[in-house]
């Protein structure tokens, strides 16, 4: 049974379950989960930095960059292949992250939060005035193709969903490995006491910069997928409230479990769709109360709950043996 406990096989099982679920869900559910997972990827990047004590209120920058790169390539250059668009979006947002990372990751606490927010608001302001990119109206994207295959309707949603699930499982597995690696553990130590980490011989700046760039790449990837799934990108992708949502998901999930991030993201999307349908004027209120309760009662997020459960079951099985 130890085979089932290894990370790759668990990921594989999870992948099969998620794909199966996709075929069982109605089209709106497939769409909702696709969007939630795309945003979850961005939040995953946020968590990667939060493990080191940095909360970014500006991940919308990469989300928006990825989405606009995909939009620009699809409309002005005529590319529609999803693999190519994803590569391009991730490439550009990684470059942006690599330029900003070494500068921004020397800041701490609220200064980091506010500076990252400022940079994403600069992009928001610039895009709102950029007529070549549709200014505040943004760009409307055509449906993507998958290596020359161009599905439509439900088939397109399903293809996009399976593509997203593949990326999410792959990214989640890789990030789990990163979190458990030496670099991941150093990140946790930085949160506790960065001066001590420096004295022990690790570079705080290098570690945080790498986390920053990884978060940027994940942000770009999430942006491309969300842009293609929604079929529209506009400057709101870089607005601070969008970045606030990613922080929300990261706080809700905590840093213990990668899976919890995507669960939290789905919860947020579900709450949003249902309450904007039934209580259009109070859904933010519900969201705010929820956030306060999580911070008050579950300071380490949903992931800590999952960890507690798995520990409890482990203890239970041990006792029986």
């Amino acid at each position, binding site marked *: 049974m130890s085979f089932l406990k290894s990370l790759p096989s668990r990921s594989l099982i999870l992948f099969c379950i998620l794909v199966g679920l996709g075929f069982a869900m109605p089209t709106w559910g497939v769409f909702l989960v696709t969007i939630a997972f795309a945003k979850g990827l961005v939040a995953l990047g946020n968590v990667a930095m939060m493990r080191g004590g940095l*909360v970014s209120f500006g991940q919308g920058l990469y989300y928006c960059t990825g989405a606009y790169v995909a939009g620009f390539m699809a409309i002005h250059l005529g590319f529609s292949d999803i693999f190519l668009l994803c590569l391009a979006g991730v490439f550009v947002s990684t470059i942006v992250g690599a330029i900003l990372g070494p*500068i921004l990751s*020397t*800041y701490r*606490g*609220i*200064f980091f*939060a*506010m*500076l990252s*927010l*400022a*940079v994403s*608001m*600069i*992009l*928001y*302001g*610039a895009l*709102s*005035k950029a007529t070549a990119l549709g200014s505040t109206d943004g760009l409307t994207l055509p449906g993507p193709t998958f290596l020359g295959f161009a599905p439509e309707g439900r088939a397109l949603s399903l293809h996009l969903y399976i593509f997203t699930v593949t990326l999410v499982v792959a990214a989640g597995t890789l990030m789990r490995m990163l979190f458990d690696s030496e670099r991941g553990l150093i990140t946790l130590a930085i949160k506790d*006491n960065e*001066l*001590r980490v420096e004295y022990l011989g690790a570079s705080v700046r290098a570690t945080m910069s790498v986390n920053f760039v990884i978060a940027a790449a994940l942000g770009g990837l999430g942006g491309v997928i969300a842009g293609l799934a929604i079929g529209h990108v506009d400057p709101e992708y870089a607005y*601070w*409230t969008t970045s*606030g949502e990613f*922080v*929300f998901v990261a*706080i809700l999930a905590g840093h213990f479990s990668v899976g919890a991030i995507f669960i939290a993201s789905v919860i947020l999307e579900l709450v949003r769709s249902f309450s904007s349908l039934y209580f259009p*004027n*109070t*859904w*933010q*209120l519900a*969201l*705010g*109360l929820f*956030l*306060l309760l999580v*911070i*008050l009662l579950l*300071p380490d997020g949903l992931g800590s709950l999952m960890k507690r459960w798995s520990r409890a079951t482990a203890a239970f099985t041990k006792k029986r043996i």
Partner: protein
Amino acid sequence: MDLLAVILVDGLIYGAWLFIVSVGLTLVFGVLNVLNIAHGSLYAIGAYTTASAVGLYFAQGGDSFPLGSYAVMVLAAAVVAVVVGPILERGLLRYFYGRGEVVIVLVTYGVFLILEDVMKLVWGVDPYFVSQPYALLGNIEFGPLIYVAYDFLVIAMAIAVGLLVWFVLNRTRKGKIVLAVIHDREMSETMGVNVRRVFVVSFSAGVFLAALGGAITAPMISVTPGLGVSVIITAFAVVIIGGLGSIEGAAIGAVLVGIARAASVHLMPEAELFIIYLVMAVVLLFRPEGLFQKIQARKI
């Protein structure tokens, strides 16, 4: 008239407005170490309350003494401070002290989300107009240009608010107690200062300043939902440029940002939406803690 003079006047008007809107934020941070994202919502609540109160004032025969509407505006802001300030500080924020600045940012982000909808529930989603106080003082000719006199009232108000805050903090006994709490919370407590009361009063003063910002803005705009969302980030930028917790810093930051924005409106309109953040990013690059922040020892 020189373009330079126009930029200067426009910049001062905008800077004065910015100062009133953001000084409460820096005060609350200075005393309580709370970076209040809900500041923008309090500003919006101030604007809504003023719109309702001034509307009521003129409906009840205020036309016979229209200048009274200015007193109504200040009164509306005071009501918001007395009602909302203690509820937020005593009822919520105090449970999160000592959990880190970033956690408090997230808590106030939650409060921001809640208040956005509470405002929709109380005032609905239709816009409010109360332009009477804006037109009341007539216009001022400034060479070939005509300015609304109300704009200069905003400048006067900003100077008055700044002086008042400075005077209370530096020249009164109560203000000196607040400074002592800012300097060393624990030591003041051992010396017999009622820190809890200082917190409630300072936070409520911050709420008052936010609401006052909303009150003076209400006659200039149509009061609609989502009013606070953009203000909060602008106020953040101003406060961070000046150095968190510094009143002088907020004043310098406000004038700097005001003139930068006026310059971009006249010289480079494409940059208008993000010039504030550009100024903030540049300042933080060279002074990572803002212009007026004292250097602090690194935590071990």
